[in-house]
């Protein structure tokens, strides 16, 4: 009986917290289907009383969706792949391979994390200009392919992996790269999935960087293209929210895909074996 009660309380808590996090999201979706006179009222309803697709119709008429979707996918997918690869490799070296100056170099990396990103934006732009990489996918993607935050996150996770596993593998004669690829990475699935999601969403929602790097309109990513269809003062909310919905759907899908890798006890099983 007591157990039943605490279970009910637990679910009640979970549902309330979910209501708080989902509310703006649901409002965003519902607004995208509302006619203009229903959007800002004293007592907004959660569901439109007159359902309309006008927001979406205008959106698809104003923006060549497939071109920008393609650009966004290229940007987000390449950043994600490179970021997972580069950062987890570096994290492995910082967590498990002994080399002179390792701790100091790592501390130095952490120090750079404390410089606000806004001040390096213009210098990075000038460097890309001198390399002739403005207005290219390479210029868009490469600066985001390594991040101290990511190296730090994965290194902390890898540090928990017992040393014995590596020793055993080394005795078996595995190269460092196969140890990394076949033993360490599978053990780190949850955190790698987390990093992949963070990288993807970071690039997917990015606005200012793709805007200043890409010159031509047909190279715009989706958030840039959507923003460029808005007026300075006139805001068409249904249109704006339809755009937000279109942008958020792939992000949710990626997250759903990634969270499957949160499987209980992978590392635990490996330790036992």
């Amino acid at each position, binding site marked *: 009986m007591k157990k039943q009660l605490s279970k009910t309380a637990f679910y009640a808590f979970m549902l309330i917290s979910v209501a708080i996090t989902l509310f703006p999201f649901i409002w965003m979706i519902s607004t995208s289907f509302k006619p203009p006179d229903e959007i800002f009222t004293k007592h907004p309803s959660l569901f439109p009383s007159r359902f309309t697709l006008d927001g979406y119709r205008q959106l698809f008429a104003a923006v060549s969706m497939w071109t920008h979707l393609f650009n966004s996918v290229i940007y987000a997918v390449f950043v994600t792949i490179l970021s997972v690869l580069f950062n987890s490799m570096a994290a492995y070296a910082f967590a498990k391979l002994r080399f002179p100056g390792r701790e100091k170099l790592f501390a130095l990396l952490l120090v750079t994390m404390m410089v606000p990103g806004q001040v390096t934006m213009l210098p990075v732009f000038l460097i890309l200009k001198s390399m002739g990489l403005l207005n290219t996918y390479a210029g868009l993607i490469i600066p985001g392919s390594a991040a101290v935050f990511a190296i730090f996150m994965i290194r*902390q996770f890898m540090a928990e992996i017992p040393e014995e596993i590596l020793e055993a593998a080394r005795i078996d004669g595995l190269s460092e790269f196969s140890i990394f690829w076949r033993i360490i990475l599978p053990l780190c699935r949850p955190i790698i999935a987390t990093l992949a999601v963070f990288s993807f969403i970071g690039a997917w929602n990015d606005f*200012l960087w793709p805007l200043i790097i890409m010159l031509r309109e047909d190279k715009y990513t989706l958030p840039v293209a959507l*923003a460029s269809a808005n007026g300075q003062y006139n805001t068409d909310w249904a249109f704006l929210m339809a755009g937000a919905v279109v942008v958020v759907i792939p992000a949710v899908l990626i997250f759903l895909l990634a969270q499957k890798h949160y499987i209980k006890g992978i590392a635990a099983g490996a330790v036992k074996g």
Partner: protein
Amino acid sequence: MKAFGMAFRVATLILCFSAAGAQAGERITVWAMGAEGKLIRQAADLFESRNPGVRVITQSIPWTGAHEKLVTAVIGDMAPDISQMGTTWMPEFKAMGAIEPLTGLVKGSTIKPGDFFPGALESNFSGGEWYGIPWYVDTRVLFYRSDLAKKAGYDAPPEDWEGFYRFSKALLAAKESGYSLSLPTNDWQIFLMFYWQSGGELLQGGEPLTPGSFERTVAYLKRFFDEKLSPLEGGREMDLLTAFESGHFPAFISGPWMISQLETSKPGLNGRWATARLPGGERRASFMGGCNLVMFRNSGNKPLAWKFMEFLSTPEMQARWYEISGDLPANRKAWNAASLAGNKKLSPFRKELETAKAPPQIPEWESVAAAIDDAVEEALYGKTEPSAAREKLSADIAGILKKSERTQSAAFKIAVSILLCLLPVTAVFLYLRKKGGDAEKKRVQYAAFLFIMPAMAVLTVFLFIPILGSFTASMTNWNMYGINDFGKVAFIGLENYSALFSDRIFLAGLRNTLVFAFIGVPLGIFVSLSLAIALNAQILRFKAFFRVSYFIPVITTMVAVAIIWRWLYNPEFGIFNMLLSSLGLPAQNWLSNKWLALPSLIVMAVWKGFGYNTMIFLAALQSIPESLYESIDIDGASWSQKFWYITLPMLRNTFFFITVTTTIGYLQFFAEPYIMTGGGPMNATMSVVLHMYRHGFKFYNLGYASAMAYALFAVVFVFTFLQFRVQKRKEEAA
């Protein structure tokens, strides 16, 4: 990738040459902002049909980020032939040397400058040269509820200051609650209109401000706040359209775009509102806004570019553009068109446009405007006497405009730059230098080198070198004059850093940032960890659903988040005030009360960001071996014992990571005040990074902004260092 880019460039070159050779196939590129960038296609199509063989490539630039995009396009040699440009941006781009002077072209043209509204010409003409031509204009008028005015005994608002004040009082008396007028306290445009009306001038005859006029304007406006005709707090989070409908604000001052917004989103109000001219003091004056067309210096086809600019400013095309976009014509002759002349709601605009004024043409205008906002807000709150506020503001403006004409030889600058870069590099080298006696295996070292190589290469080029660069910049006077011409940049030693100590806004920002981190970090971590543990609970079903739900705030775009939170915090009908009133407590101005604004933003930031840390905690919780819990289960351990003796120690590494990164993140607090409050009220939510961003990307004081970044860096460094010490002590104890 690069080969492809090369091939593409070669192909374009060939295309250009062959086109030029054939005489036909001339082309120009035109940038315009937002919706106008899409609609200008219609004008371009018309132009193309009248000029066979000509191509006009139009491109839309988002309004958010348009300024940054134009500046970087100039620096990156990617500017178009023609661009739309905000009237207040003109002097900056002139200072950068990016805009082509048009004097010769204007002289030989069919365009008569006298056809345009005088206020619209001001921003295009300076130092005897033409730099652009007006494209469209806007100005501010009064929007009022005609039904409520009638109830108060007025057919139309009086057109003088005293009468307007009495009208506002009558309007308030004629209804039960709310106010009579929405009058933002920190909007320099609103202030300037009244200041101009009272005979005030800006930067004329060697005086930054006109004594007397400034005081009169403050005293006049202050009456509206003191007598509750307009709220000192609570104007910002209010949804204006809904407040206009409910009668909470039966009048407000705004621009032409409001006509169509009211017509489409509040159709029920049609026939119950009207527009009117602003009241006149010693003279009439409204604010002249709108946009110009400019030609960039590097345009490859200036004759054609000019032809298109001329085309857009003919009366015929100006009237047509109003039909396409709703933008008001800058050319007076276009106003004879039936669609404009016959519109009653537009006639107050037409009259105000004749006398509307534009702010002075100086590149530092954005900084001056921010200083005006600051000084006026303080005076309206009654914190400073009007005359003291004027003297202080005059001094501030003089300080902003003071130019340090320092010339330094290129060799000197290169030498100092190298020395400044060498400083941190040497420090790093000394710090990293090898202490002999490594017994490590060569093979492992070699592997380690290969493993860190890719990330380190990217970080070196795109993080370490930029950091060195911006550190060097923090010792210079790098600003908009030098942004595209390093010859105008000079080293000024530690002046930027010493200026920080007397920068009131920076100090306020530092204090707010620390408060934000001290409350936000523990709160955020507590929420993330609790929810991660809940997500990890064995009894929980539909785990995927709950995980996605918690991550949704992270992926929902800030635009949607900002609207909904503004609505939650709305003083008139927001949920928080509904809760308070159901408890019998008074309503609060969540975002505009200087004590509540920062806590309100903290709550919002925690809500938006906790999902990140929840996912990291969850990933770490997943890897705690079940066997550890099983062994303690046998001993009959309680839930809290499991948490303290197994979960928390096993999360040590993750916990440390999250504390460090969250602290760094919260000390770089930016997005919430940027979108929600702009740093107000009275700088109560100003953060260091927001102040830095304004200096870096709005005022283009890049040297000063960099100095701010490194001052913040020093603060963050101290905190992180302390966290490391604690962690180390814990590890030693363990």
